[in-house]
């Protein structure tokens, strides 16, 4: 297996481009980056993450829950405040917005763990390779799954 390490993104992307242009099978290339690098995704034709579906579903559920929860509670305990109608959407929007973020974040986390099959309990505390801020390209002998 060949490994290339870079301290900056530009060198990393350049090398990746060269590897792909030279005809190395994209399925043999594995990359590790400290943050999302769109160019690497595009060069390796990475499919879109399924986490976004979890996030979207969670966010919509959160919004609906926020409004349903507030409307249900004011109808269950009708208390007119400041002369406003019982169902006052401007005030309920705050709860809806907060729950959109909360549910969206939590389902994104759940989706991330589910799709990456993490955490792996076996060997959980054994030392693993740490790449820190480096940009890594690994060209394996076998095609990655």
């Amino acid at each position, binding site marked *: 297996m060949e490994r290339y390490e870079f301290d900056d993104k530009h060198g990393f992307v350049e090398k990746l481009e060269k590897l792909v242009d030279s005809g190395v099978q994209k399925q043999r290339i594995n990359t590790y980056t400290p943050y999302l690098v*769109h160019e690497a995704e595009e060069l390796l034709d990475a499919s*879109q993450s399924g986490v976004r579906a979890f996030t979207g579903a969670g966010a919509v559920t959160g919004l609906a829950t926020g409004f349903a929860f507030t409307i249900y509670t004011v109808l269950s305990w009708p208390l007119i405040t*400041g*002369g406003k109608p019982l169902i006052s959407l*401007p*005030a309920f929007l*705050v709860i809806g917005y907060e729950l959109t973020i909360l549910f969206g974040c939590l389902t994104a986390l759940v989706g991330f763990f589910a799709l990456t099959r993490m955490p792996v309990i076996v060997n959980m505390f054994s030392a693993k390779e740490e790449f820190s801020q480096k940009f890594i390209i690994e060209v394996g002998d076998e095609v990655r799954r």
Partner: protein
Amino acid sequence: MKDQHLSPRNLIVLFIVFGMVIAVLETFVNQTSDGTLLLTLTFWTMLVQGAVSLAAVGETAKGLWLIPIKRELLCLYPLLLFMALLYLLMGMRMDIYPWTAHPNAWLNARFFIVRNFVVMMLAFWVAHLLARSVMRGDPKKNTYAVLYILLFVTSQSLVAFDWIMSLEYPWISTLFGGHFFIQSFLMGLLFSAVVIFFRTRVGVTGLTETLRDTGKMMFGFSFMWGGFLFAQYLTIWYGNIPEEVSFILKRVDPAPYWGLSRLALALIFAIPFLALLSRKLKTMPAGMLFVVLSSVVGLFIEKIILITPVVPVNPVVVGIEFFAMIVLVTLVFRTRDSFMPQLVTDPGGVGSVRAPSG
């Protein structure tokens, strides 16, 4: 396409000519619609100050993504001088403000003109120093960037509190200043997307990452615009105090403001929000231009909503003044080589990479 050249002296002559055109329009043609000049000044000051502020923020935050268009953003700085000089024409429009009948320590015509003019001139001067130091890789560039950001926030807060909010004196909203400088920053981002569109059209490559990051920032700041608007609205709605809600009611209830207010909300918030969710669109210059057009039209309508319930504007004169400003911005942009040095190569310093030529 080769950029044209214009000496700094000719640039000043150009400013005088355009300034004279607008002065003549305001003095002889537009004698009754007092809000026209205010509308032009507010919109274009936001754009010019916002573009330079984006470069300044990129400098302080060491934003690598901005490097390819930093020079293009900074090149608008001479227009800060033009806007400051144009602002002096507001001296003949002071009767649009109700407080002129009973001036006080802060709101009196002379202090109003002087403080805004001084802040705008200081912003111009610091922007000039910032542009020069960034292009030369001068270590003082961070100091100038921070100074400019402070002046930008002060100037835009004055635009909000003095120019617009005091039209409805004694109505107040403490978030108005924040709402305005966030908007101005958003306009800087919109301008950078337009720059990338035209740079791509003339064959400049390697701008996809910058466009994508601009798209992300546009998404964030259009959301923030919505957040600031809602924060002000919710407080006033909750309080339900007649002197506060009248400001809102005047701008969302009667025709044509009922439709215009909802249209502005859709154009500045809903359409950019939905469009910019797409990853692909953020890499397409033409797609981004569509979002820019939506936001710019929305921001223009928002200014109409803020100003025209109090003072009328003349649509024909607004059209001519906006056309003149578009021509002026285009001329300054196209002739930037005359007054903007190229970015110097200074390994190790952020902002020192030579921008793509073309």
